[in-house]
């Protein structure tokens, strides 16, 4: 479950990690705007250098950063291939690839220098509706719980199923999802009861 996350190093200690979350989020957004929308190679290259400097100053392990970045590029590459369908060809392809790469790097850098809870605090401050932020926080909290629960249910199913036909795999997958929904419904009721017991509304 933890394998696919891109924010493993969000709680390191470095000059970048100690910066205010709002400043980091604002800077990341600025880099994204500059790299994603501003036409001009100079701006794009500057944004890329800023991201690399941030990774170095944040003491994020380069092996981790590069492997996750390459993982994100796997999704950007096929979309970049669209460039070959129009006049402009490989130049647009390079442009899309560099743009997408710098933006992915900026998101990786933000995720690995700022814990999610602080990003949510920034979102609340810049005017995201309170209910949305609360739901996001709850989702973050229970994401891992439910994903692990789904994994356990699937594992239990697999260890009791000896026949591996495709039809059976579909039915098993669907029954895991269905049961998971019923369990999440019950869990939501328990969470609400716990909130009430602790003086919540």
């Amino acid at each position: 479950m933890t394998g696919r996350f891109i924010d493993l190093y969000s709680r390191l200690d470095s000059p970048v990690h100690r910066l205010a979350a709002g400043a980091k989020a604002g800077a990341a957004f600025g880099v994204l705007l500059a790299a994603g929308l501003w036409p001009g190679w100079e701006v794009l290259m500057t944004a890329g250098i800023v991201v690399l400097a941030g990774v170095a100053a944040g003491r994020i392990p380069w092996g981790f950063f590069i492997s996750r970045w390459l993982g994100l590029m796997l999704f950007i590459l096929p979309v970049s291939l669209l460039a070959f369908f129009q006049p402009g060809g490989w130049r647009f392809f390079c442009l899309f690839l560099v743009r997408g790469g710098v933006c992915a790097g900026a998101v990786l850098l933000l995720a690995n220098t700022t814990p999610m809870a602080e990003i949510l605090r920034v979102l609340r401050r810049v005017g995201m509706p309170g209910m949305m932020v609360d739901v996001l926080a709850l989702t973050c909290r229970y994401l891992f719980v439910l994903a692990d629960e789904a994994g356990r249910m699937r594992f239990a199913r697999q260890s009791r199923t000896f026949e591996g036909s495709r039809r059976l795999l579909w039915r098993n997958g669907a029954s895991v999802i269905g049961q998971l929904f019923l369990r999440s419904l019950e869990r939501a009721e328990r969470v609400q009861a716990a909130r009430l017991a602790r003086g919540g509304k």
Partner: protein
Amino acid sequence: MHIPDGFLDARTLAASAVLSAGAVGLALRQCRSGDGADRRLPLLGMTAAFVFAAQMINFPVLGGTSGHLMGAVLAAVLLGPAAAMVSMTCVLILQCLLFGDGGVLALGANVFNMAVLGTLSGYAVCRLSGGLLPGLRGKLAGAGAGAWVSVVVASASCAGQLALSGTAPAGMVLPAMVFVHMLIGLGEAAITVLVLWVIAGARRDLLEDDPERSAAGWRVVAGWGMILALGLALFASPFACGWPDGLESVAQRFGFETRSVGSLLSAPLPEYRFPGLPDGGLAAALAGGAGTLAVFGVMWSMSGWLIRGRRRMSPVVE
């Protein structure tokens, strides 16, 4: 279907962000209204976490490939469209911040395609077609048709945004995306029907019409209808052919000529039209309607087969 950063232009980003903010704002207001709004908070968060976990379960398709659920219509059938839209928006925000799926700038566009258009169009089809035929079987078939529509409409809008930004020619990207997702949508429909069938076996009451869940004020419905129509007209119509200047001006400012280079591949269908019909918009609407009916038929027979199978196993369930 997650669009990364760097592929959409500022106008497309702004237009889709404004439309999604409006639709999700209405959904939030809908969730907050009425009694016990706070009671719904854990449910919304838990639903988003559930959709996240459900998306991680892979279903084997052909060869070594596998697909997974999107879940917008599943959530909308079980919890109502407003709660589904809020939960799907949460899923997309966290996917981009925690997994890097989809861009941060492109979040408005991705939320609009999957959370707003997917939920609204799928739920509308589900309610309309599910009401045609009575009982659990009609409900399951309607949900399947809705799930198919949600995936196809979201993919058309995604293609339209890419075309509008000048990233790819509309005549190529729109039919290609829609065709691929007409197949992917069949998987989404089958999984949605199977999951709802499993849930109906344990908690039949969750599939009954709940006035609290499905009722929405006429203002909310009108607002959603307007946003749906605007979004379809702007992004998912076959006329989407780019903002006035588009990528050429970008190419100039980046210092390269578009005409001198020439493309490696030419667009296979420069002006896509549905065969035998002259008008693009009408033909697309007809084809979409026919496809929805066909999927409804397939899902009708599949749910009939599922329900009969369960009755054979245990006569008390129905």
